[in-house]
């Protein structure tokens, strides 16, 4: 492993320093947090899909098997990323971006999509969600593009505009699926990475204004989104319609209380709470393990964020720092939004809980980003950490 690392480091060296990156041990806090989150995911995907899959398909482990297949693919991706020096990731930026574009366009073409909304591509029985793949691709691309243009970022036209156009196109394609939640999240990701990269506050303020306008248009243009938003504002209204899911989610947390009803004992997952295995899995965690369990999940994401941002702060290269920031933000912000939605702090957006929710594309995408982050964590050196 060491020899392979050394050889690869020789091939792909940092453009500016032209020196091979030193490689230390992986950040064990980060790794630990991810493993615990994956374990919770395994536990609760089994827990929440068991009855549904049995009832619907006569096969209680159908979803678990699919989840585990994605887990294996994701872990392989993670290990590959862990083995490659971060300089290699740069070369992946464009292929990933092009792949994201192609798949996002394909999903919009009639005949390719699967389901009512055009969010999934089907390959021989496996469903693939391009927008999840696009999230990872955008993180990689932004880190690459903004690192390259680090000294021109003060200029709107030369520094920001290319990235804005590229990511704007991705956002537009996702919004067309329609997946407004995904589009908003990628916009947020863009803003955060731009901010971290050092874009001017003025530019960011203008962008935020434009983004809010687009968002309001998006919310008002479709009735169900308007309803969701209004339901969010008045959560006691319409408990049968749009508010039903959120109400059931609250009941799950209430039933769980502080200590929970016990693993596997959730009632709300028995067809009361819609999407109990995907976007609302956090509610089932709340019901079964109580406040302790949910706080634990929040702390794990907090730990993930802290360790990830530490990498972002101390990585020797600008690309590494931006990539680490993007990956960390991608995971933690998405987790935060998902949990906030489930407990009624944000309107329903349709974002999964990373590592935990059922959903193969998101899991693979998250695990690959985590792999890159873990690799970057190995390249953070104590000495540099000290003087940076």
């Amino acid at each position, binding site marked *: 492993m060491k020899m392979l690392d050394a050889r690869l480091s020789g091939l792909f060296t940092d453009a500016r320093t032209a020196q091979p990156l030193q490689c230390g041990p992986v950040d064990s806090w980060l790794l630990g947090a991810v493993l615990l989150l994956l374990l919770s995911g395994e536990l609760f995907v089994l827990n929440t899909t068991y*009855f549904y899959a049995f009832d619907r398909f006569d096969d209680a482990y159908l979803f678990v098997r699919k989840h585990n297949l994605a887990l294996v693919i994701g872990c392989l991706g993670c290990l590959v990323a862990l083995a490659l020096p971060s300089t290699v990731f740069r070369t992946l930026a464009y292929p990933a971006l092009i792949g994201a574009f192609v798949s996002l366009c394909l999903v919009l073409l009639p005949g390719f999509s699967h389901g009512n909304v055009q969010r999934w591509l089907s390959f021989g029985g496996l469903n693939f969600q391009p927008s999840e793949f696009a999230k990872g691709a955008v993180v990689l691309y932004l880190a690459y593009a903004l690192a390259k243009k680090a000294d021109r970022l003060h200029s709107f036209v030369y520094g920001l505009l290319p990235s804005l156009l590229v990511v704007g196109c991705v956002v537009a394609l996702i919004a067309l699926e329609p997946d407004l939640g995904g589009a908003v999240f990628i916009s947020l990701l863009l803003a*955060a990475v731009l*901010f*971290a*990269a*050092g874009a001017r506050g003025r530019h960011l303020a203008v962008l935020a204004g434009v983004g809010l306008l687009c968002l309001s248009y998006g919310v008002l243009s479709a009735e169900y989104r308007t309803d969701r938003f209004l339901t969010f504002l008045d959560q006691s209204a319409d408990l049968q319609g749009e508010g039903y899911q959120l109400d059931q989610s*609250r*009941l*799950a*947390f*209430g*039933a*769980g*209380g*502080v200590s929970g009803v016990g693993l596997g004992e959730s*009632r*709300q997952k*028995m*067809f*009361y*709470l819609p999407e109990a295995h995907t976007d609302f899995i956090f509610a089932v965690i*709340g019901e079964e393990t*109580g*406040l302790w369990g*949910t*706080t634990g999940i*929040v702390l794990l*994401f*907090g730990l993930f*964020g*802290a360790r990830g*941002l530490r990498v*972002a*702060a101390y990585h020797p290269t600008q690309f590494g*720092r931006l990539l680490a*920031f993007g990956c960390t*933000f991608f995971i*933690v*912000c998405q987790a*935060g939004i998902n*949990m*906030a939605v489930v*407990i*009624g*702090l944000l309107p329903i957006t349709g974002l999964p809980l990373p590592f935990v929710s059922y959903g193969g594309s998101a899991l693979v995408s998250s695990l690959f980003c985590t792999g890159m982050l873990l690799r970057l964590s190995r390249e953070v050196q104590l000495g540099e950490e000290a003087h*940076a």
Partner: protein
Amino acid sequence: MSGRIGLVAGMLGVGLLLIVARLVHLTVVQGDTLAQRAARQHRHRETVTPQRGAIVDRNGRRLAFSVGAESLYVHPAKLPTDVEDMIPALAQHLSLPAQQVDAILHSSKPFVWLKRGVFPQEASQIKALRVSGLDSKSTQRRVYPYRTLAAPLLGFVNVDAKGLEGVEKAYNHYLLGPVSHTLGERDGRQRAILIRGGGQQPETFRVRLTLDTTLQYVAERELNRAVQHSRAAAGSVIILDPQTFAILALAQVPAFDPNMPGYFPPDTRRNRVISDYYEPGSTLKALLVAAALDTGQVSETDPIFCEHGAYRVGRHTIHDVHPYGELSVDRVLTKSSNIGAAKIGQLLGKERYYDYLRAFGLGQKTGVDLPGEINGNLPSLRAWSRIKLVTVSFGQGVAVTPLQLACAYAALANDGMLMRPYVVSDVVTRTGEVVHANGPTPLRQVIQPETARRIRTLLEHVVEPGGTGRRAHIQGFRVAGKTGTSQKSDPRGGYSETGRIASFIGMVPAEQPRLVILAVIDEPQTATYGGTVAAPVFQAIARQALTYLGVAGSAGEGVDIQWAARPPVSPAPPSAESAFSSEAYDAGGDGSSADRSEVDDFIGLSLRAAMRKASANGLRVVAHGSGYVTGQRVRNKAQTGEAVYELRLEADW
């Protein structure tokens, strides 16, 4: 850059803290309220009833019982798109028309029953088709293995196993058994999960009838035969044990099959023996004479002047079919003279007659343990005009249910003691513990025992040669009885021109009756006399019943060894197994007795009709008497060898 990262870190940290704060709010502050609401929505309470109890006859034969079954239902919205292809298979397995299945599967409702109470075997065939959106719920189904046998008495149940008629309704409380509740939870689709308790419990109580299936079968077969033979609209038979007033058989035609009550008109499902009334006609004369003898107003040999066939009462004139001069009280009954009865009624007086009729149970419910009984119609004393007393004396202007009349005669048979009739002897648990029992319930001594014996002797004369009821005679037994023929009251008021009700009520053995049998034939077409149409039904049933019950013949009468040695009947009703087969159990006769009637049977015809029939068939007849043909014989003329039919005509009324 690290400054900005720090800022982002801070923002993310604040966000995560807000989430924790909200979690604390939900679980600690709102926790109890939310937990209670959640528990309420998960709670599931279901009533569980044990298997519905069986109804058995006095010998323990199961006439009604329940079996486990499935009710199939569909969620039309969840059916697969290719469900069209399965419609023929579904329709075939369920024996439903394809259009009906089609309509159910395309219903816009979220939940539709496909078929309820399907036998498990049938249901498993349907489940083998594996149609998503089609599911079943376990339930129970009522089975009546003897089909139409005793159906109006048994009643029937609805799809929810609730008794709607007959014993099923009257004893629903016991048959249903104790209702328990399961406490469990349900899922978001309202399906029960984690049930504690429940499950199908075996039957708790079993209801045992006083009915005897063999007697019931005999009664139905003979009634059917008579109704078919006389082309009557309907008919009914009651067999009562006069010593206990237990109902041994209760038959009516037309019948219905309680396995599928929906296929029969409601009129056939009613127990007409207690829910229909009719004018008893001459059968009431026995009660009149009993009352007159009991009060001592008359005695058997007192002469009654019968006005030579026409008697004026106010503006009305009443007639006898045969004019009589002077008749003894005994002969008034034997000849069934209306004028004689009217005279006896006038001797008795309306108050006393009314009191006796009330005491015999007319105008009030018998109190039998069956639902839907009516009072009959005994006009209140205020409404009794002079002519009313006269008509009621021969059974007009008063209406009884067949059971009321049977009970009144059973009182005569039971030495004057009227009791409450009953069909259920007891209700027992599976371990044999009796939780409810009916037995002989004396109501009142209507007439003195001595009077009862005297009236039975008079009624025996009715059945003797020369009496109107001689066709009820059974060799080897002393039979007492009375014929009755009455006009049906017209729904528009007054009396129907053509509709007659022929009846015969009798008891046997007359010295100490074991059986009281009433046969009522509604609108017979070939003949209208009770003595002609109904008395043979009584005779046929009584003869077989006596043999079956092993009743010894009366002293002084030649017991027919043939019957005693080998029962000609005792037709064991079809067993439960064979009743399930496609061969329908048919209580009807074999039709052989009807063959002869086509050409040369004149019995029951009026003189005119007999003459018309004879000339139509090229037969020579010689008629004796007037009224209706009650007997016939063929004689070959010595000179020509030509067959001559000698008809004996009699009036019955």
